[in-house]
Structure formats: structure tokens, C-alpha cells
């Protein structure tokens, strides 16, 4: 299981590294080569063709004069940074529904039950504990992005919270020194280095991501002490516990996003990409 993930990522990277034209080309080739890939590759070629016109300006712009057409141009300004094409849409659609059901049938009931029996203080403590454990990830990524000051803050937070914060269950660094956690990860680091999102991809259980961010998540895994727990069952169990604790704070968020959306798939895709872009920019 652990080996499957890197292979998938490598495969995606390989696909992703080819530029649009050659992918479209190879998609066409595979149509000829094998009938089974027919539908998949057509979708790929189609979506590649679909997204290219977004960059070209529409020609009928000139005959549209309005005293205040500022809103038209602003549209285009912010499209590029938070952009990721979606050639894997058939897969993503399946995963979207899978995760949706997983949330409503499993995650939400467990999270609710957990929230009902665990006092707020314990849940916050557990969250703090896991956040403290993931300090190496944030610290290293601050450094990789050349944010020395932020790295220092992460280091100071770790020292403070691990000692007088009882192994990280409390967050005195924030309470007394107003030192805020610096939300950095490898996906953002790659973004800062100029790596584009690549394709949008929805991971089973993990939710929305892109090729870049998945690669980042994979790299970050090695910086998290939990990864080195043996046996694997224990590591997975602890990880699941962390996720349930996390979700117990966020029950209802997903429902709100869905309720507020006319096209939940697109809303979540855009929301994810925007949030990531804003984090990279920070």
C-alpha cells in the first residue's frame, strides 16, 4: 500500500511533464492504438482544447462599450494563478462522490460521536499536540522558501510548546507571545519555486489536490514523526485519530459549502485552488 502512492505520483508527474500539445497528441495516438482508452483520452484531449481559449481574449469585446466595464477585465486578472486544468475529471467525479459519501456515512457520524464525548479542551489539546508534532514540516518548508524569520518562530514555538506546553498539548507560544503557527508545506514551497499546479486531482479520503500538492504531501510525509511509527497499523491508526479530531471542529463546513454552491464540484475545485494560491503568495 505504501508503495502504491509514490508510483501513482510518479506516473502523474510523467504525464504532467509533457506539455499540452504532446499530451493531446499522445491521447490521439492512444485512441488509435487501443479502443479501450477511447473515452478517457477523448476527454483528455477535449478538456485540453477547452481550457486554452480562456487565455485568448474574445473578439467581440470592442463592440461592448459601457462606462464602467472594469468588472470584465478584473475577471481575467486573477484567473491564472489559481488555475489547474482538469483532464482527470471522470476520475475526479467518481472520487468526489466517493468522498462525499465517505463524509456523510462514516466521517461525520464518527466525528459527531467523538465531539459529543470529548470535552472541547481535550479536542483542542489533541489538535495542538499533532500540530506540534508536524513542526518539522513547517520549519523545513519555511527554510526552503527562504523565510528565516518564520523558521525561527516555528522553532521557538516548538521549544516553548514542547516544554512548558506539556508536549504540545497547550499552546503557550500563541497565548503568551502571540507567535502564530506558519502554515507552510512542500506543495507551497514548490509553488514559491515556480512549479505550477499541474492537474487538479481528487484523492480518495484526502480530498482535493493537484499534482504539485500531492507530490508535496508525499514529501512532507517523511518529515512527520508519525510516519516512522511501527507497525504500519499503529501509524495509520494514529493518523486516523488525528483526522477524526480535526473533523470534529469542522462538521458543518462541508455542508455549508455544498449548500452555498450551484455546482459543488466546481465550487470546491475553485475554492481549493484559490486557497492554495493565496497560501503560496503569503
Amino acid at each position, binding site marked *: 500500500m505504501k508503495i502504491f502512492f509514490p508510483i501513482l505520483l510518479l506516473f502523474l508527474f510523467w504525464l504532467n511533464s509533457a506539455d499540452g500539445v504532446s499530451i493531446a497528441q499522445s491521447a490521439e495516438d492512444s485512441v488509435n492504438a487501443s479502443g479501450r482508452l477511447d473515452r478517457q483520452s477523448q476527454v483528455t484531449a477535449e478538456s485540453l482544447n477547452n481550457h486554452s481559449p480562456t487565455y485568448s481574449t*474574445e473578439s467581440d469585446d470592442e463592440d*461592448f462599450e459601457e462606462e464602467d466595464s472594469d*468588472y*470584465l477585465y*478584473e*475577471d481575467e486578472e*486573477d484567473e491564472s494563478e489559481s488555475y489547474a486544468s482538469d483532464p482527470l475529471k471522470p476520475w475526479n467525479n467518481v472520487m468526489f462522490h466517493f468522498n462525499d459519501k465517505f463524509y456523510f456515512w462514516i466521517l461525520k457520524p464518527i466525528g459527531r460521536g467523538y465531539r459529543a464525548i470529548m470535552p*472541547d479542551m481535550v479536542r*483542542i489539546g489533541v*489538535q495542538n499536540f499533532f500540530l506540534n508534532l508536524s513542526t518539522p514540516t513547517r520549519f523545513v518548508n519555511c527554510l526552503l522558501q527562504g523565510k528565516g524569520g518564520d523558521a525561527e518562530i516555528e522553532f521557538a514555538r516548538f521549544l516553548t510548546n514542547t516544554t512548558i506546553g506539556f508536549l504540545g498539548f497547550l499552546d503557550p507560544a500563541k497565548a503568551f507571545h502571540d507567535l502564530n503557527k506558519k502554515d507552510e508545506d512542500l506543495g507551497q514551497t514548490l509553488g514559491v519555486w515556480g512549479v505550477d499546479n499541474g492537474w487538479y486531482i481528487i484523492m480518495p479520503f484526502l480530498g482535493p489536490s493537484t499534482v504539485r500538492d500531492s507530490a508535496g504531501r508525499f514529501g512532507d510525509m517523511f518529515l512527520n514523526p508519525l510516519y516512522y511509527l511501527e507497525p504500519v497499523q499503529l501509524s495509520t491508526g494514529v493518523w486516523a485519530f488525528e483526522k477524526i479530531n480535526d473533523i470534529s*471542529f469542522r462538521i*458543518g463546513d462541508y455542508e*455549508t459549502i455544498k*449548500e*452555498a*454552491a*450551484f*455546482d459543488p464540484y*466546481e*465550487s470546491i*475545485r*475553485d*475554492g481549493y485552488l*484559490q*486557497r492554495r*494560491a*493565496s*497560501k503560496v503568495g503569503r
Partner: protein
Amino acid sequence: MRYSVLATAILLIMGSSLSAEAAEPMDDLRGPIEQAIRILKDPKYNDLVMKDQQRMEVMSVIKKIFSFNEISKRALGRNWRKFNLQQRQVFEKTFADFLGYTYFKKIRDSYQGENVIFLSQEKISDIKALVKTKIPRKNNEIPLDYRMLRKKGKWQVYDVIIEGVSLVKNYRTQFKKILGKESPDQLIDRMRKKIVEQREQDKISS
């Protein structure tokens, strides 16, 4: 005594004329937002029967500072041109209602007496500004930024950015997808249906 009254009067006059001259986006925003929070906190609305009235009161305050015309235009982007004059008006009204219902419900359900902290304002140009705020919560804080536009000397909100996600842009990507397949009337219809849906859900849960 008399002098001090005079001095105060002069100061007051000067003060008010100064503030009228240099209307700052953050100051324009602060009043209505704080008023909306007061309505949210007001115990007289605790009864669920009063919920609708509370929503209307909040909306009337919000409408003072939010320009739903600008919000609608920007949420539709290029598609705004596909709408005729009447459709534009209907869209604007329905979209405002929809946003009012959806977000008021969310805010009312999760509101725990938090205050909004106004952090800073950035003037992007003569007529555009970004006001940054945050809402401190139990275990985290939610950054909430307002994009504002000056129209006829008055600053108005045309976009809200929650945790880095622009609401207007998020709706724009959705509307773009939908209007690729459907007509403006169908979109407006969808919106109406969602409002009805939410109203019914509200009745069930309350």
C-alpha cells in the same frame, strides 16, 4: 466653562467636516458590520420565531455597505452581457436574497459571540481598497477580507475573501460552467429553487 463649550463645538464641527472629506474604506465598513453584529447578539432574537425578522434586519444593514449590483456583475463577468436589463435586475435581487439566506443561516448557526477585528486597509487605487479583518474563534481565527469600490464618494463592498477564497470568483467559475449550458432565466430559476429549498430545510430544523 464657556470657552470649553466653544472649543468642543469647534472641534466637533472640524472633526465632522474632516471625516466627511476623507472617507476611509475601513471606517465606512466598520459601522454597518458592527451594527450587524449587535443585531446578531441581541437576545430579543433568541426565539426561533424571530429568526426571519433578524435576517431581514441584518440584510438591511448589509445592503447599506454591500453593492449587490457590483457583486452580481462581477460574479457573472462576461456573462453579464447575456442578461437583458430586466434579467439583470432580477438576477441582482435574487442573488442578494440567495446570499442573504445562505450566509445568514451559516453565521447564525455558528455564531458564538465573536467580534470582528479590523486589521488594516490597503488602498489599491483611488477607487479601490482592500480591508482586512479577522474573526477569532475558539481554536483558530478566520481571515476575512473585503474588496471595496468607491462609487459616488461612498465605499462599497464588491467581494468578500474568506481564508483566501474570493466569493465572487468562486461563483463566477460556477456560473460560467452553468451558463455554458443554460440560459440566464434557467440560472435565475435554479437560484430561486435553492432559496425555497433552504427555507424548507430551515422549517424542518427549527
